[in-house]
């Protein structure tokens, strides 16, 4: 009998990875952006399956919505004929492929290196379908209150639970600074070209 959780995981994982690879192999920058959107949107599905509903919605909103609109904007502003695709030499491809492949192998080895990671706690896996109901808890944690600390079974971890108020504030300020900075950076100075008179008309004598 098919485990639907697994089925959907495989579906989303395949979409994610396939489009990620498509981003790499695609030469056209606009298509890259489209593939990236697809890949990231599929990651959202993975998050839902991992019972991270709030994070998933956030990913959809900020990442897929916000970031990528920005990206697409940038792509379009700069996507002119010669720049749409810029080729690199096969030697570069080889170098990059070797390094990336080595990294991939390393990561894959690490991923399967722990036995406990390979066995799912079957009894609880259905919880993923219900959605994690994490909104309130995340909200409280960002305000410095860890209501989930009480549920933490491990006393060692329970002791070290603290809220995320300070990081939250820092991130907020950081975002503000970044946005101001980005706006400033993007406003480049350049000399205004004098507007030439329209060539088609001349004052009738």
């Amino acid at each position: 009998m098919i485990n639907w959780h697994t089925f959907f995981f495989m579906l989303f994982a395949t979409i994610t990875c396939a489009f990620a690879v498509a981003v790499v192999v695609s030469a056209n920058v606009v298509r890259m952006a489209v593939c990236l959107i697809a890949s990231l949107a599929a990651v959202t599905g993975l998050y839902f399956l991992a019972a991270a509903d709030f994070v998933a919605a956030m990913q959809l909103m900020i990442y897929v919505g916000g970031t990528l609109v920005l990206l697409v904007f940038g792509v379009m502003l700069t996507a002119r004929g010669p720049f749409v695709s810029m080729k690199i030499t096969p030697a570069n491809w080889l170098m990059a492929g070797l390094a990336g492949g080595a990294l991939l192998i390393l990561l894959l080895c690490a991923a399967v290196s722990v036995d406990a990671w390979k066995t799912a706690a079957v009894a609880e896996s259905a919880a993923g379908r219900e959605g994690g109901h994490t909104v309130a808890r995340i909200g409280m944690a960002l305000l410095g209150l860890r209501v989930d600390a009480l549920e933490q079974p491990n006393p060692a971890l329970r002791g070290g639970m603290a809220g995320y108020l300070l990081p939250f504030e820092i991130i907020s300020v950081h975002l503000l600074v970044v946005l101001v900075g980005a706006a400033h950076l993007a406003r480049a100075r350049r000399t205004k070209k004098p507007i030439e008179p329209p060539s088609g008309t001349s004052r009738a004598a």
Partner: protein
Amino acid sequence: MELARLVPLLLLFAWLLPLGSFAAIVFAGPRMGRGGHKAAYLATGAIGAALVLSLAALGAWLWHHPLAADSQAAAPLSGDWYTLAEFGKLRLAIGYYIDALTLGMFVMVTLISTCIHVYSIGYMHEELGEVTDPLVRGSDGGPLVRPGRFPRFFQYLSLFCFSMLGLCVAGNIAMVFVFWELVGICSYLLIGFYIERRSASTAANKAFIVNRVGDFGMIVGIMILLGGLGTFAFGDHLGAGGKVEPGIFSQVRPASAEHGLVVPDGLVRMAAADRLAAVYASMPSADAAEEEIARQIPQLRRAGYGYWLLILAGLGIFCGCVGKSAQFPLHVWLPDAMEGPTPVSALIHAATMVAAGVYLVGRFYPVFAPEVLLVIAVTGCITLFLAATIAIAATDIKRVLAYSTVSQLGYMMFSLGVGGWAAGLFHLFTHACFKALLFLCSGSVIHACHTNEMTEMGGLRKKMPWTAGTMLAGCLAISGAGIPLLIGLSGYHSKDAILAQAFSFARHAPAHGWLFYVAAAGAAITAFYMFRLWFMTFAGKPRVEHIYDHAHESPAVMIVPLVILAAFAIGAGWTLPVVNWGLPELLEQARPLGTAEGFPEARTIAGLVIPAEHYSHEPALHRIVSLAAFAAALVGFLIAVAFYGLRLLSAEAARRWFAPVHWLLVHKWFFDELYDAVFVKPALFLARQAAEIDRGVIDWAADGSARLCVLIARIDDWLDRWIVDRFVNGLARWTWRLGLALRPLQSGQLRQYVVMIAVSTVTIFILVSIYRNYALLP
């Protein structure tokens, strides 16, 4: 919504609206339209909205506590909006204490402020553009030209309204003190509005410093109350754990003693600290000691412990009020404060701020012992007489009004002192209406004539009919005109009530009977100088032709507030029949518990009895006083008519006959000169001595140490050059060489970097797994 939630909420918004307007004008004032003229609309709108909210709050209050001929005291609402901090039992909070008096003050302050805001839109319009100030010399020798400060004016007005309303609504002494000082700073800012004028800045400083003297006393009072009672709050409020914590009033006049004046335990403990310490030392445990002390306290109280502290606290608080309300001997600042723009004079120095002192005395009434009240009465009496006499000789129209204000404030204090709680506060309200009116009228005159001197005016009645008419209403009101025993202008009712109480006091405490006669004489003088002012300004022939020619009636935006205020000056004292709507009835609702029946005989001064106020309402007594007061006013009026109206008598001749008296009055009883000699000169002398010591001793020591430092620095320099630098330079050289060697690695190729990072990461992980035996593969 229930009353206890609705009324504080309404007042909260009414209170905070001017603050919002202030903040908005601070940040955006000059950008609000041309010259910032929209700031005026903002400020006026804010205070107008506050008026509406205050009226709504009053309406809600009256809905629950309808007025009756014999109004009973209604329980005040007290509580906290926001707690700033808690130190054990002591709580520092933004609180409120709302009774009919608070609501009346709110309505009065917002009403008059609204009128004055509207008036100021017209009066201050010159500040919209560039202002040429002929009184100040600019850097080029000509008259000073400066940018207008229209928004700034309204910004200050808003801040002032916020402070004054905060003072009225305050629920604890700490808050009272804060807003007390805020009111003071507003006064400072507004007196010094024409900051370039030396006289204005001096007057501002004077007002501020003189007030500090009073505030010193006030701090003493507050300290005593805090130390003895352990709380700031006026009323009872819920403390931690849902327990009701008694406020100041219920500690001084506990319900268990039928609201009689009782020296609180805390003050007794404070006074008898030595004996209690001995008890602690002798007892085995703290609990036992507490028990013993609790047993001893009634005895100690009977022995008089703490009573002096209570008196001292009362005097301290009153001291603050003396400063703020310009009572003798701290009255000197108020006439100088007339340097500010006239609306300010009307708003702050006549109608509201100086009334704050009276208001505070009224608010603290339950705390005062009879001895304190006597001091208050005497002070008030002296003030009212002194100021009235000075007003006779003044020629500056605003100064006359300023001294009149001081005198009327003296009346209020006097009334409170002789037990006329409701009468004094009643006069506070009526006086606010007609004094604001008078000041605004004088502003209108000044606006037209560009001079303050009455000797240069005259005959303006024809040119300014509205101003003259409304001012006449104001003069009649302040003189207490009316049909005796029947009805009169607002001043008639309130002044009658004061004199009746004074008369009642004189009967009960004959030793202090002279106070009544002084007050009655004051009434006559009041009528005299007010009508002197009116006749000199509006009647007769013009004295200076070109001023008369240029005079004109003020614009409608200034006239409308005058008319509104005139209506109030006429009718504020009336009590509507049947529904019993009137100020005295409203005030009766706010009467502090336990003061209705007067005070028992004072403990330290024999024969001092403060009679209950309702004795003065007896028809027999009231009739006599009413006629006497009217006669006094009539006499004053007739003298004024004789001198200035019909010119039957010559003022010039009178001045020659009473030359020494005139000399004394023109110099204002030499108070300024006295203070200069006693306080200012010695202070300056001390400052000069201190400066000498500074220069001779302290500077010398400082210079010597500097020279020593230079020497040490030379040595250090040598060490630096020959040892430290050589080491650092060597290091730098090696770094340079290393950098040269590594330079080619930095190719500027982003992709190359990425590959390098990836390769390095892989390498590090592999190395780690080899050397630390982490198995990457299962």
